[in-house]
Structure formats: structure tokens, C-alpha cells
């Protein structure tokens, strides 16, 4: 039996914003080779949970372990092992696609930044736009560049918050390929999406969250689309 700790493990995590409780008693794990679809209605707490895993938000109560250590205390190390796509693209409109990726590659302490940037751009299908400024990209292409930035340093875990936003069919295929290859090489992915079928298709495990609580956590093969949809619908009703 392997003694490798889970990539992420939350124990009784709570997050409060003023009087609003965004997460309550959340216990989830993420292990190697897993792709977790984190689903739920608007305001259910998906983004807050992802931000907590990504060490962008500190839990009010409870513990988040990342790679076996307390995540917040080791956040610089945790951040070097994860790739994050959030709602806002973390790129500079004034810089070209290559310049953006070269900059972030340097910030991640990578060598051969030009090759890294070119490889990442190739994976997301942006090679032809490599020398164009990010400001000239459409919403979908900007999201691809955002994905390229997230995979630049070949992270162990991809934390993707609605990564399919703005993507067309070809863009979604690029995203699917990135998720599948991440899982195939022993990494893991946790993603949120409002495209239920698409998210469930990419997942090896499905987690549904409602009002900050996990209401369903099952391996993909043990849960039907109808059950997932019912859990999300229930969470939407609970949120009203």
C-alpha cells in the first residue's frame, strides 16, 4: 500500500465572510490520478473551496493539508505544485502571448522559458498567435492562454474554476485533452463548471456542494447523471 499522502485533504473546513458562511464542515480529498468535478448552483461555495485549496483564501476553521503538510503555512511550496485557472485571466493585456508565458515561467523559476512558453502555446493551439498581444485575443482565446499559463510548470494539480467559460467546441477539446493527460501522467484535476454533462464526462469523481456543504461525493461510475442533476437541483432549491 502506498504511503503517499493525498494531494489535498480538507478536514472540517469552514469559511466565513462576515455573517455569511461560505463553507461548512467540508471534508474532501484529492489523490493522484483523479479528476474531480466540483458541481453546484451559483453561490454554493465551489469557488471558495477552490480558492481555499489554492491557498488564495485561508479557512476560518478546520485544516487543509496539501501534499501532506498544512497548506497555508507552506503556501509558496503548494503554489509551485499547482496550476490555477480562475475567473479573471492572470495575464497582462499589453504583453504578447509568448511574453506573458515567459514572464510567468521566470516567476516559477523555470529554465528555458522560451521553449516552455512555445510548448504550452502549442498545447492550447495558440502557436499562430504567439506574438500577438493578449489584448487582441477573444474571450475564448484568452481562456486558452490562461490555461497555457496554468500548465506551464507542469503542476501536480490543476485547480480550474469554470475553465470552459468562453471556450468553443475546439477550445473544449483542448481543455479535455489537458485534463485527460494530466490524469494520465499521475497528476490530478479539480474543476468547476456549470456544463454538467461536460464536467461529469471529464471526471473520475463527482462532488456536489450546496450552501457550503458537500451533499454528494461519489466516484463517477457509481453515480448517474440523473442523481448528479438531482443533487444540483436540490442545492439550487436549498440556496433560495
Amino acid at each position, binding site marked *: 500500500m502506498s504511503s503517499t499522502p493525498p494531494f489535498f485533504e480538507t478536514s472540517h473546513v469552514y469559511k466565513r465572510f462576515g455573517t455569511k458562511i461560505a463553507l461548512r464542515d467540508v471534508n474532501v480529498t484529492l489523490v493522484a490520478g483523479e479528476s474531480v468535478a466540483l458541481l453546484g448552483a451559483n453561490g454554493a461555495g465551489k469557488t471558495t473551496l477552490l480558492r481555499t485549496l*489554492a491557498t*488564495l*483564501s*485561508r479557512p476560518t476553521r478546520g485544516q487543509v493539508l496539501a501534499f501532506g503538510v498544512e497548506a497555508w503555512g507552506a503556501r*509558496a*511550496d503548494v*503554489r*509551485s505544485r*499547482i496550476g*490555477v485557472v*480562475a*475567473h*479573471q*485571466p*492572470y*495575464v*497582462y*493585456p*499589453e*504583453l504578447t502571448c509568448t*511574453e506573458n508565458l515567459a*514572464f*510567468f515561467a*521566470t*516567476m*516559477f*523559476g523555470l529554465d528555458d522559458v522560451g521553449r516552455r512558453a512555445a510548448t504550452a502555446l502549442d498545447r492550447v493551439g495558440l502557436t499562430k498567435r504567439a506574438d500577438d*498581444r493578449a489584448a487582441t485575443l477573444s474571450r475564448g482565446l484568452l481562456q486558452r492562454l490562461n490555461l497555457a*499559463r496554468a500548465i506551464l510548470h507542469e503542476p501536480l494539480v490543476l485547480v480550474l474554476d469554470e475553465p470552459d467559460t468562453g471556450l468553443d467546441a475546439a477550445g473544449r477539446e483542448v481543455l479535455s485533452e489537458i485534463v485527460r493527460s494530466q490524469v494520465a501522467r499521475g497528476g490530478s484535476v479539480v474543476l468547476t463548471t456549470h456544463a454538467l454533462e461536460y464536467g461529469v464526462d471529464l471526471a473520475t469523481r463527482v462532488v456536489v456542494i450546496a450552501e457550503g456543504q458537500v451533499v454528494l461525493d461519489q466516484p463517477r461510475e457509481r453515480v448517474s447523471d440523473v442523481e448528479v442533476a438531482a443533487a444540483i437541483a436540490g442545492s439550487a432549491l436549498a440556496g433560495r
Partner: protein
Amino acid sequence: MRKVWSLVWKDLLVEFRGREFLGAMVVFALITIVTLNFAFDLIRGDREAPGAGGLWIAFLFAGMLGLGRSLAVERDRGTLEGLTLCPVDAGTIFLGKFISNVLFIVIVQAVSLPVFYALYNLPSLRPMVFLIALVGAVGFAGLGTLFSAVAASSRAREILMPLLLFPLAIPLVIGTVRATTLIFQGESGDAWPWFNLLAAFDVIFVTLSYVVFDLVLEE
């Protein structure tokens, strides 16, 4: 240091292509210098002290304009979060932003000093003036970078920034104006104690800002 210089390179490239605030800083400084020149034309006595004061009003207020925007723009765009997600300590981000801000203020000074010389007929193009201008820029950018990060997350940042920055910058304002006045009066030797005070200010506040930057950057 590779990461620090990469941050500086990025800031310069973004600014020179996007023209977010450097142009506004230069124009503000020039307008201040020109406007105050009309007022000082009416002064019959020595113009050294009011001239030095006017010069530093132009530098500090123009610097405030740039410092206020330097981290606010990053926060509004979300790129500040992108930076914090990189495995770099907050001190590295501080140093990158600090050096960029010093360079922007120095550019404003480089453009303003010859104009000031032409209008005021005061010896503003002397090495000692350049030295005081540089230590003033370093201290102001050091404190300003820290408070820019504090104010960036506030909706009232345009008010908050000067309220936080200027009280602490008072020793720097006094030191730069007094030293510049002495140089304009031809007593450069007497300006050295002020230079030493400014250098000490720079060391203390840049170090302090570097150390506490982590607290203001993280949630």
C-alpha cells in the same frame, strides 16, 4: 534576483505599451513646475526655498499619482492574484514593484529638472541635486509601494493612499526640501547631513516595507 528583474521588465513593458500612468505623472510634474513659476515670479526676495519646495511638490505629487496606480491596476485586473500564485515570496514582489516605481519617479525627475532649470534659473542640474532627487525617490517609492498595496484593496484608495503615506513621509519631505534649498543657495556642503538623514530614512523604511509586505499582500 532574476525574478525581481523579470517583474521590473514586465512593469516597464506594460507601462510603455499601455501608458497607464507615466505620461500623467510627467505632465502633472511639468504643469506644477510651470504654474508655480508664474506665482514665484511675483516673489521679490530669494527664490531658492520656494523653488525647492515647488520642485518637490511636483515630484512627490506626481510620484503619488503613479504609486497609487501601480498595485491598484494589478489588483483590478486580477494579475496581482496571478503574481501571488507564483512561488515567490512577497518580498520579491515588493522589490520588483519598488524598483519599477523608483524608475518611474526618476524618469519624471529627469524630464522635470531641465524644465525647472530653464524656468527658475536655479542650479538644479548639479550632481548633488541628482543625488538628493534619487534618495528622495527611493524613500518615497519604498513607503509608497507598501501603502499602494494597502490602499489597493480599498474602494477609497485615492483618499487612503495620501492619508497613509504623507504623515510617514514628513521627514523625507523636510529633508529633500531643506537639502535642495541649501544646494540652490550654493551651500552644498551643508546639505550632506540632510543627505545622511534621507539615506537613513531610505534604509529603514525600505527594509520595513520589504519585511511587512507579506502581511498586506496575503488575505
